[in-house]
């Protein structure tokens, strides 16, 4: 049993989360909220110890994005109880801890407003009302919370241990369908499942500071890394993709990227840019420090090339011209056809032109520069190679012309140091985002309903080398939960919309699912099959993470899982959960349908 199982609130149950103050109950609970949102469950959050604004801030830190008031709403029993006044929020109804009736009324109002079933009600925490109302809280649990859960919802209520009478806590625990005790012990958190409607009583220990998997030498499977680099540089077979092959339809990584962007429009673009830019420098740094990595990541041919052909720095035009092997590689990977514009470039200001850019193709005239991957990759390449040669400085790149802006090709400006217009170029306003979303949906529905091909470039076709997947979906490993959430939530939203549109078009449930699974095969995501479960062999999202040795303890196909989950919730009112994952060492990725 993994932490993911515990962090999922079971249906029709009231779970009591008990523990001493500061044991991490609220944090645990926030994870439940995020999981609930990712599963497209409406969430009602009763807060008695913090204001909704504060909680939203914390959830955003963990990658929540911008849920609608129908998806996440609050009963604020904090502000009024302590007597502070805060500006009205459209997603909040006030109540107070002194009067339990005000809380039950507020929850009922939000429940009506949501108008949906399967609500996740989080109550953080029962301690405050207990202090005001005493034992009446036990009646409240029985006659309101327990009843609310029994009507087809999930309730998770927190309570502080050691505050109040022992017998009251025992009474609360006896009413709850499940009890999880949380304790801390030195550097780890102990989750003690005392009783649970779905899980067996057990104890599990979780490290308090989950280790951020940075780009470190020890996380690589050097063999897999070497195989992968060989495949990339000399055209060998990509590990883990023996049957499906080395290419995917570039619609898929773009779809994942823009789903994440739609979920978290404020921060996602900058996050992606920075990750892509830091990728190459981080690898060069590792290669410098670690001989084994150097040999795996930089085969001797590359090292030789670097030593004799690469300049000490890329400031001058004549030196930048030497980056041609890199540009050639981009073309070879079918990212686009790139050329260096040496006539318009000058020292410390370089221009490149790219035809048929995979980042931007299909987004003609959406009103924004669309390149998300190529500019930061180029900046990272310059920084990385300079570092290899002993110079430490920043590089940045911005797209100056783009198919998305109505130009016939894309152009990039590459400079050492800062670029002022970069931020504005990365962030997209609401109308642009809507157009991007519309374009994605047009392509998808054209394919799913009318059998039209997704995207096709005149020279380079619709495929792109699997390397691109890593930069669209492989980053959770490096960037942590914020990126994971954006992919998951974005995927879930898109999956839901796709499902709804297929249903609106009059397709049967089974036909809708079948067509979407066909789409995955068509995009060469992997080998897809479905009976009791859904199985994807050689799934590009996780095949790629194989080059890391540290087998993930958790399934980590964030986008695929979110997308399938959204689809199933819209089409069949079911959910999916990833139970096997290539990234965990399983032979394929598998989702059970619940």
């Amino acid at each position, binding site marked *: 049993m993994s932490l993911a199982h515990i962090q999922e609130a079971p249906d029709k149950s009231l779970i009591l989360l008990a523990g001493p103050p500061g044991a991490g109950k609220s944090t645990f609970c926030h994870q439940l909220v995020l999981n609930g949102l990712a599963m497209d469950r409406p969430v009602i959050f009763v807060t008695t110890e913090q204001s909704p604004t504060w909680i939203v801030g914390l959830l955003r830190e963990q990658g929540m994005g911008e849920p609608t008031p129908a998806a996440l709403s609050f009963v604020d029993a904090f502000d009024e109880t302590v007597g502070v006044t805060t500006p009205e929020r459209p997603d909040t109804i006030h109540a107070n801890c002194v009067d339990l009736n005000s809380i*039950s009324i507020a929850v009922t109002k939000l429940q009506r407003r949501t108008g949906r079933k399967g609500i996740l009600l989080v109550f953080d925490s029962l301690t405050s009302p207990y202090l005001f*109302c005493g034992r*009446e809280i036990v009646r409240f649990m029985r006659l309101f919370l327990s009843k609310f859960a029994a009507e087809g919802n999930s309730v998770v209520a927190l309570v502080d241990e050691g505050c109040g009478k022992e017998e009251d806590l025992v009474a609360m625990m006896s009413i709850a369908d499940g009890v999880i005790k949380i304790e801390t012990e030195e550097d780890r958190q102990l989750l003690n499942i005392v009783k649970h409607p779905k899980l067996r009583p057990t104890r599990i220990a979780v490290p308090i500071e989950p280790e951020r998997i940075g780009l470190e030498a020890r996380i690589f499977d050097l063999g897999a890394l070497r195989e992968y680099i060989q495949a990339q540089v000399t055209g060998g077979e990509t590990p883990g993709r023996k049957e499906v092959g080395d290419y995917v339809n570039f619609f898929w990584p773009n779809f994942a990227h823009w789903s994440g962007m739609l979920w978290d429009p404020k921060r996602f673009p900058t996050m992606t840019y920075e990750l892509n830019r830091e990728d190459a420098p981080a690898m060069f740094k590792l290669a410098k420090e670690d001989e084994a990595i150097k040999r795996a990541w930089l085969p001797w041919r590359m090292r030789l090339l670097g030593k004799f052909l690469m300049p000490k720095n890329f400031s001058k035009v004549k030196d930048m011209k030497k980056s041609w092997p890199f540009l050639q590689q981009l073309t070879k990977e079918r990212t686009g056809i790139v050329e260096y514009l040496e006539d318009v470039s000058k020292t410390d200001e370089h221009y490149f032109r790219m035809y048929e850019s995979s980042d931007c193709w299909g987004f003609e005239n959406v009103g924004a520069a669309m390149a998300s991957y190529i500019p930061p990759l180029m900046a990272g390449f310059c920084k990385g190679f300079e570092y290899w040669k002993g110079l430490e400085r920043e590089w940045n790149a911005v797209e100056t012309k783009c198919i998305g802006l109505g130009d016939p090709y894309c152009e990039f400006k590459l400079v050492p140091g800062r670029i002022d217009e970069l931020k504005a170029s990365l962030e997209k306003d609401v109308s642009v985002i809507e157009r991007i979303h519309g374009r994605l949906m047009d392509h998808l529905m054209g394919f799913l309903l009318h059998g039209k091909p997704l995207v096709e470039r005149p020279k380079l076709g619709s495929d792109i080398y699997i390397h691109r997947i890593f930069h669209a979906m492989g980053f959770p490993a490096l960037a942590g939960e914020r990126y994971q959430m954006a992919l998951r939530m974005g995927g879930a939203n898109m999956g839901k919309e796709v499902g709804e549109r297929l249903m609106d078009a009059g397709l049967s449930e089974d036909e809708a699912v079948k067509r979407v699974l066909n789409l995955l095969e068509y995009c060469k995501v992997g080998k897809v099959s479905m009976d009791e479960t859904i199985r994807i062999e050689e799934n590009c999202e996780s095949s790629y993470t194989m080059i890391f040795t540290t087998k993930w303890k958790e399934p980590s196909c964030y986008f695929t899982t979110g997308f399938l989950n959204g689809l199933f919730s819209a089409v069949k009112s079911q959910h999916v959960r990833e139970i096997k994952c290539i990234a965990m060492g399983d032979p394929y990725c598998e989702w059970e349908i619940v």
Partner: protein
Amino acid sequence: MPDHVQTGISGVDAILGGVGIPQGHTILISGGPGSGKTTFAIQFLYTGATEYGEPGLYITLDEEPEDIKKNMSQFGWDLDKLEREKKLIFINVSPVRVAPTERAGLIQLGMKEFKLVKLLEAVRTGVEEIGAKRVVIDPVTIFMLQYPDEIERIYAMKDLIADFRKNGCTNLLISELKGTGLEREHQFEEYLVQGVILLRTVMKGDKLSRMFQVSKMRGLAVDNQPRPYDITDGGIEVYPTLTVFK
């Protein structure tokens, strides 16, 4: 003719056996100050007129109709419009109005019979004029105060209710509830009417908590547990499935 009159107030009909008040009954609405008695009564007439095609008559003995209309506009109810469409009529029979300059108070000895007659006449006029099916007297307390002798008071009330039975309307009598909270004395009106609805308020700390209770409804199996209610932007909302917590 339907057997029951739906109040149309959120949650109330569910408590009234899912059907509403038995048609032709006289019901006492009893509540403390600020409990929403007038709101309840106006909402009863408003939904009657707008949703069930039953015109309403509102007899006020206390507040000016203009003040009531103004107060009720916060819920989005355009009472003037209903009046113009002859779906609602306000009649002011306030005793103070009879002698506005006198400082003798509300009780005017020797005028009792006239008051009862006047009140009944007002009801009759209203019913005839717009074919009212729902009648509210707000508050009946003022009318009763004119009979200092308890026996006389009971007879006056009996006469009023007897006359009401003839008109075929469903009537709400509004009265002040003596004592707040859970402890209270039963008032004699409660024995005479066919139904009693209590709107009670309890102070919880510095907040008001409200409960709605049908304590009597002849001829109908009702839920007589207290249930929480709230006065919202759209009027009174009762939560028939929620339990009241102390």
